[in-house]
């Protein structure tokens, strides 16, 4: 009997598709079959301008009636300039005039029938959507949505901050369990996506920002450092819009946890490649995890026969797993047994569990834990690596 468990995808080669669209209707600027790079603008649209409301009745201190309505000089759809007279009402046989002017340059969006309010709208603003990943256009939808595809190395993190960016993969010269200090940040790393290490200090992040990196992928981060980096304490795992100098992704969790060897190997293997990174995370309601996408060169895009299998989300004896809950948080191991019957925990709960042989111990791990030790863990606290 198989059991599906959570897993974060880490693979050297897979087919990825991404849909690119705007919040407003737009127009696709590419065609099916086109090759695009990360910076190619694929969709363009317009956001309507804000509306400023003018109330001639209130401004002139008169009721809105047929006489006032007849004094309107503009209609819906007219373009107006700032200061242009919208309403001119004449009194005393034309000797006295009262006017209402447009407060802005724009166009007349509406004139209400009931009170005669005039909505003057700012000009529309152009908005664009870039490709974000280098690949091929495989679909265009009405309304301007574009579907892109590529064969890429793909790494999902567990949590991140910062939006979409791109850069060149540069592995840090660090062991997976080494903390990331300022000295580890290469002097020449502008435009890079730095990868490796366990947990950065705030000074390391500031150094990286000063040197112009676009992203960093590491094992973990402390809450304090993250708050100093992002400027606020994050209470719910819904991110992507933070005003951060570069996108930061952690692959293991909060604390001081080494990056998994497998993740490190995949990123090391692609050193020098152009990658896309997004720290956007949404744990609930349509889960979204942060990601690094490293497309293979055009010559290696290939067909399905070149695609490795992504790790299947099935827990089996022999599966390599990550333990995701205290007291074994961050430890890696191999599943040795999957008992059928639920076991009692010291909390009183009866759960289905797995017996896991520990592979490595995190820095600061309890002295009673040794590599090779067999521990019993609820299946809910296991993640496939």
């Amino acid at each position, binding site marked *: 009997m198989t059991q599906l468990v959570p897993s974060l995808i880490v693979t050297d080669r897979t087919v990825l598709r991404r849909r690119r669209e705007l*919040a407003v209707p737009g127009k696709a600027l590419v065609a099916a079959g086109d090759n695009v790079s990360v910076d190619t603008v694929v969709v363009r649209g317009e956001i309507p301008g804000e509306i400023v409301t003018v109330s001639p009745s209130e401004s002139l201190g008169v009721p809105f009636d047929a006489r006032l309505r007849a004094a309107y000089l503009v209609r819906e759809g007219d373009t107006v300039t700032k200061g242009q007279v919208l309403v001119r009402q004449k009194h005393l046989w034309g000797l006295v005039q009262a006017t209402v002017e447009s407060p802005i340059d724009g166009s007349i969006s509406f004139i209400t*029938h*009931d009170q005669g309010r005039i909505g003057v709208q700012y000009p529309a603003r152009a908005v664009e959507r870039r490709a974000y990943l280098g690949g091929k256009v495989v679909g265009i939808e009405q309304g301007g949505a574009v579907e892109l595809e590529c064969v890429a190395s793909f790494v999902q993190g567990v949590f991140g901050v910062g939006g979409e960016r791109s850069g060149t993969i540069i592995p840090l010269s660090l062991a997976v369990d080494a903390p990331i200090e300022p000295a580890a940040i290469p002097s020449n790393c502008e435009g890079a996506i730095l990868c490796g290490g366990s947990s950065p200090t705030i000074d390391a992040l500031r150094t990286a920002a000063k040197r112009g990196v676009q992203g960093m992928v590491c094992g973990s981060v*402390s809450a304090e450092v993250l708050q100093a980096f992002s400027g606020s304490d994050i209470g*719910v795992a819904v991110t992507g819009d933070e005003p951060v100098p570069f996108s930061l992704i952690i692959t293991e969790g909060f604390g001081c946890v080494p990056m998994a060897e497998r993740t490190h190997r995949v990123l090391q293997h692609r050193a020098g490649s152009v990658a896309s990174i997004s720290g956007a995370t949404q*744990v*609930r309601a349509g889960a979204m995890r942060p990601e690094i996408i490293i497309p293979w060169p055009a010559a290696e895009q290939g067909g399905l026969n070149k695609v490795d299998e992504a790790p299947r989300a099935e827990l089996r004896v022999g599966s390599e797993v990550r333990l995701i809950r205290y*007291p074994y948080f961050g430890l890696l191991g191999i599943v040795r047994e999957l008992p059928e019957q639920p076991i009692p925990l010291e*909390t009183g709960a009866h759960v289905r569990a797995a017996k896991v042989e520990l592979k490595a111990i995190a820095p600061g791990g309890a002295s009673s834990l040794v590599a090779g030790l067999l521990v019993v863990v609820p299946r809910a606290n296991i993640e496939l690596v």
Partner: protein
Amino acid sequence: MSSSHQLPRRILVTDCGSTTTKALLFEQRADGAWYTRSRGEAPTTVEAPIADVTVGALNAFREIEELSGVQLIRSGSSESATSFADLFLPRDKARPDVGLDLYLSTSSAGGGLQMLVAGLAREYSANSAARAALGAGAIVMDVICAEDPRTSIEWIDRLRHLKPDIVLLTGGTDGGAIAFPIEVAEMLLQARPRPRFGQTIRVPVIYAGNAAISQEITELLSPIADVSVTANVRASLDEEQIAQARDAVHELFLSHVMSHAPGYGKLMGWASQPIMPTPAAAGDMVRSYALAKKVSILCADIGGATTDVFSVFPDAEGEPVFNRTVSANLGMSYSIGNVLKEAGIARIERWLESSVRAASTSQELDHRIRNKMIRPTSIPQTLEDLKVEQAVCREALRLSLVHHRQLAVSATKRQRRTFADIFGSKERDEQQLVNLAALDMVVGSGGVLSHAPDRVDAAMMMIDGFGLCGITELFVDSVFMMPHLGVLAGVEPQAAAALFEQECLVAIGCHLRPVRVAKGVSHGQPLAEVRFNGTSVGEICFGSLVMIGEKLANQRGDIEVIPRGRQADFGAGFGQARARRRVQLGQVGLFLDGRALSFHGVEAIPR
């Protein structure tokens, strides 16, 4: 006359949740008492690829049939059945285990009823609009008010992203401000929000603001929305009327939202009564039970992402007032990071025993909680880790009660708002509607409370989290059937109340603590004698908490608290005795709690 009229009644009720559809079959025994004959459940099928909620409901019905041996459904009918009579077999005196009298349902599938509300001032119309929505069982996705710093462009983008089921637009007293509701209407016009279900349908907008511009608002929005106009929720600053807006929300929920959600048109045809939003039904159960038993009640359902709080308290005129709030940012998994953020690690740590605090630094505990946020389906494996979650639960309950008190007002009486009210000056508990000194019973629901391995832990989370005082009976909801009972209460209120008491609620104990203690009282000083059914059972001493169980467990009787001297007030005044009749002592017995309400710590509790 139907041949079923002499047969014990049989009613099937479902709750179509976001992930699971739970069915309960209620039946009358020969003596007229009601019980739950069977339970069934199946995955909810409102999302793609099935996209028909009736498929999941039928699966749940079939499980009921298999487990109970009762035949409910006409064979071969389910595909085409559009009414109760088409789907269900009628009762038959000759075959008692065949047929059904009524089918009822609640729903929170697809995330439940999701609303956007707008009001001019956060403390007035926006507040009233939010409560009208909450009272109808909605989740308030966002609130627009004039004080919001976001620009119109940001709001338009957000409106497109949110996809609310209903928009409630308020603002301006009658004859007062007009600009704000018009500006919001203009933003809606630009955003053209689409509903979640039924892509060709226009989003319904309820306008409950300044009556002077209701026609203008209707006109403005007519190209993109179906507008209903109801009474202004704040016709004047002093007066609030949310009942009409709340009823309009409920009506639109049925006619507009539910009828367009996948399969709900058919489900509504099967149901004998209108389908209710799950939180509204749970709230109705709390309200009807409180009214039937003439008790004040506080009920909290603490989930992974949100905490629902329901309460019924008497107002200044003694009329029971129901309030519901949803703290959408307080929960035990997805929102646990927010509890940490709002409470701070120090407030969470104070609830941990010294041995737990010694084993981990504050930073390690902080990280442990945040790692639960990003891996919300993980479970505590060790007792120590469970204690950390229970400490977080205390803070989530505390914060959700603060939120509840801020919003809970008497909806039918004039509410004079002074500067002190607006700027949040502290007022004595008994001046607030939610007055814990007058609370009769508290009910906890949600996994961390209902499934706590030791009932004492559940009791302590509620006692500490809410800061209970006075004389309060403690219960947990063992199986979360409140939504089912809430919709059942609409047709069989006595049955619902009886089932609530007998099958849903598990009595834990009775908690006694002074509401106020005079200054200068020393630690260990006796504050009051406690008598049960006339016999002295113990003392409440300042600074200590003692549980008295064993002989008292599961008994029901009269409690008397007789203060020693004038050092303590148990709700009747300093030095005044207080009594309550027919108190349920539950599995644990009595909690004699002399700890100050500002208590900051916990150690092993002597029994």
